[in-house]
């Protein structure tokens, strides 16, 4: 009997499929299946009820009650689709507009707050925040939807630049374990966000190869302390350093709309003062985003000093866009930077630098993602020996280890080829760069974050004198405030 039953069960979920009678009728067992079917049907388990009734009908050709129940389940299954279920399917397929319409139909007919919640989420996804907010507010009234509704209300508030309100909504949503870590992270971010955001960073560390000297060579002499190689001269190039940085971001309309950004940074070597870096940048841009898609355009002017002297002045135009597709977030970025090196000896490096990249990011778990990026750049400098084309891939990872602890990592490989034959090195220079970096951040208190980072580069070249490697471990503290 069991083999026959298992065979019958292969089509068991379809109440409309014809029932094949078992070779050995068993009305007693059929009655047990029928009772089980009745219970399951009463509990709302249409699939399980169908399985039970089909087994009953197969074991007892005279079981009219099970056949009637199957017929009824068949009619229900063939009835016009429930718009709520249709909406769920559309939502699954990211058809936000159609899904919102389906949920809206249910909400208007029944006042269903589950439909209101999902309609609100669909509207948020489309960027229709004004439509989303009242729907989410109404869904918030129902306790089982409260946490998710608050989570999306937080996202709406965050997009509208209301950081304080967003933060408290995320904090409220974080009581739900299924949202906890992500909501807590967003609450932290929102607390630090706003129409006006001010941030400050102080850090200190060690650079094992400040002058980018080749392995084993010493270019700076003097003190000890480097880690660049095994040769005796390799210990001369390392130096301790400290850095300070500050930025101000003003977004009068929130995430979408115009913005102004300004900042300055300073990186001082403890010993090799001729390698001190300083810089300031001012930028103006505009961001638009809707339905998971977005674009941003920006103009920036920056000025840098090197060793205390004017070094580089540049104007940059940049544009970027992103969109979802195939479970990934795709993005592309392009920037053109007009560079003017201020020292007469470096004037040959001046020119137009183009940079472009495409990126595919795969989210995993909540708030985590891994991305693959391919970038290319073209530096059209005044001299052929300083002009180059560079390209290569990199992988990025962001992991939310706990609500207060985050990890970021990046690793990449790039290939650079210069345009012209360089008589000094006796070759047309080609380089390869292996880069890697890792950053850990831990939130100490509201607005305060401790940072630990390690950056490394290995440069390989067809000119051995231009090969080098370096490591830069840093420890720092950052502060950010949003108003």
């Amino acid at each position, binding site marked *: 009997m069991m083999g026959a039953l298992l065979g019958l069960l292969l089509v068991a979920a379809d109440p409309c499929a014809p029932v094949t009678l078992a070779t050995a009728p068993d009305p007693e067992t059929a009655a047990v299946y029928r009772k089980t079917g009745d*219970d399951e049907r009463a509990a709302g388990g249409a699939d399980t009820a169908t399985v039970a009734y089909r087994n009953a009908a197969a074991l007892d050709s005279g079981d009219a009650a099970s056949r009637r129940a199957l017929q009824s389940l068949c009619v229900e299954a063939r009835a016009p689709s429930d718009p709520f279920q249709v909406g769920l399917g559309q939502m699954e397929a990211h058809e936000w507009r159609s899904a919102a319409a389906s949920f809206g139909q249910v909400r208007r007919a029944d006042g269903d707050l589950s439909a209101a919640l999902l309609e609100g989420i669909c509207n948020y996804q489309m960027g229709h925040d004004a439509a989303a907010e009242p729907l989410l507010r109404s869904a918030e009234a129902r306790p089982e939807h409260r946490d998710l509704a608050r989570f999306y209300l937080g996202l709406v508030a965050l997009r509208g630049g209301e950081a304080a309100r967003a933060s408290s909504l995320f904090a409220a949503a974080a009581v739900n374990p299924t949202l906890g870590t992500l909501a807590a992270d967003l609450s932290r971010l929102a607390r630090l966000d706003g129409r006006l955001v001010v941030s400050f960073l102080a850090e200190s560390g060690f650079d094992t190869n400040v002058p980018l000297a080749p392995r084993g060579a010493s270019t700076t002499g003097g003190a000890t302390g480097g880690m660049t190689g095994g040769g005796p001269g390799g210990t001369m190039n390392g130096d301790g350093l400290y850095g300070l940085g500050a930025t101000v971001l003003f977004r009068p309309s929130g995430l979408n709309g115009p913005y102004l950004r300004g900042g300055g940074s300073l990186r001082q070597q403890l010993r090799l003062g001729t390698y001190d870096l300083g810089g300031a940048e001012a930028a103006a841009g505009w961001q638009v985003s809707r339905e998971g898609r977005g674009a941003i355009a920006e103009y920036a002017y920056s000025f840098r000093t090197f060793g205390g002297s004017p070094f580089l002045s540049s104007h940059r135009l940049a544009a970027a866009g992103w969109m979802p597709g195939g479970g990934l977030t795709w993005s592309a970025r392009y920037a053109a930077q007009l560079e003017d090196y201020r020292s007469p000896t470096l004037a040959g490096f001046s020119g137009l630098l183009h940079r472009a990249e495409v990126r595919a990011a795969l989210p995993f778990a909540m708030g985590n993602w891994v991305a693959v990026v391919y970038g290319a750049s073209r530096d059209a400098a005044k001299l052929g020996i300083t002009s180059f084309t560079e390209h290569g891939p990199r992988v990025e990872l962001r992991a939310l280890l706990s609500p207060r602890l985050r990890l970021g990592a990046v690793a990449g490989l790039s290939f650079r080829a210069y345009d012209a034959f360089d008589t000094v090195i006796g070759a047309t220079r080609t380089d390869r760069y292996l880069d890697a970096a890792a950053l850990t951040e831990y939130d100490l208190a509201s607005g305060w974050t401790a940072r630990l980072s390690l950056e490394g580069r290995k440069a390989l070249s067809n000119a051995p004198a231009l090969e080098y490697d370096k490591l830069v471990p840093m420890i720092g503290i950052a502060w950010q405030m949003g108003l």
Partner: protein
Amino acid sequence: MTTSGLLVLLGLTLSAGGAGADEHLLAGARHFREARYAAALVEFRVAQRLGAPEATRYAAVSLVKLGRPEEAVEAFGGLDGQGPDALVDYYRAVAAFEARLYVAAHRILATVADRAGPRIGEQAARMRADVERALHAEPAAATIDWYLEQCSAGRGSGRPVLAAAYCREAAFLSGRRPDGYRHAEALHGGGPASGQQGSGVKP
């Protein structure tokens, strides 16, 4: 599961039921292994009716898999104590977690971690950490209201085990508030208690 785990469990318990019940227990286990949880549930229910009481907990595990956690809590017969098998207890905790009975889930998970295999143990530990984070903050009055509503609804729909679990959850959460919001009511199983109001006013 761990289907293999369920089969092993079934193998160990087949002698407990009658011959007909055993046949349905085995059929349920096969369906479960092949992820046909609806069919598995039906077979376990039939086995139960034919005199295999142990089929009840396998039916409960199938209900968890079918996304019916409230029915699973009822089918497990409660959320107290430690069951004979860590795997079934893990599913008991999942049912509690999905029914938002976080305190109960936490209590069960505490007994699972050391008894289950490494994979389930790790999942249990992760879920437990999630619950601990969720329970860290002081519960809102509205949250306690919701649990008491579920308690009352459970009683009204003939699910006394589930109703009691919601009330116990409400009692634990209200006990963590300085104002003891509706605490006595929760301790009395969701019924009105003198001196307690549902308005959030201190008693």
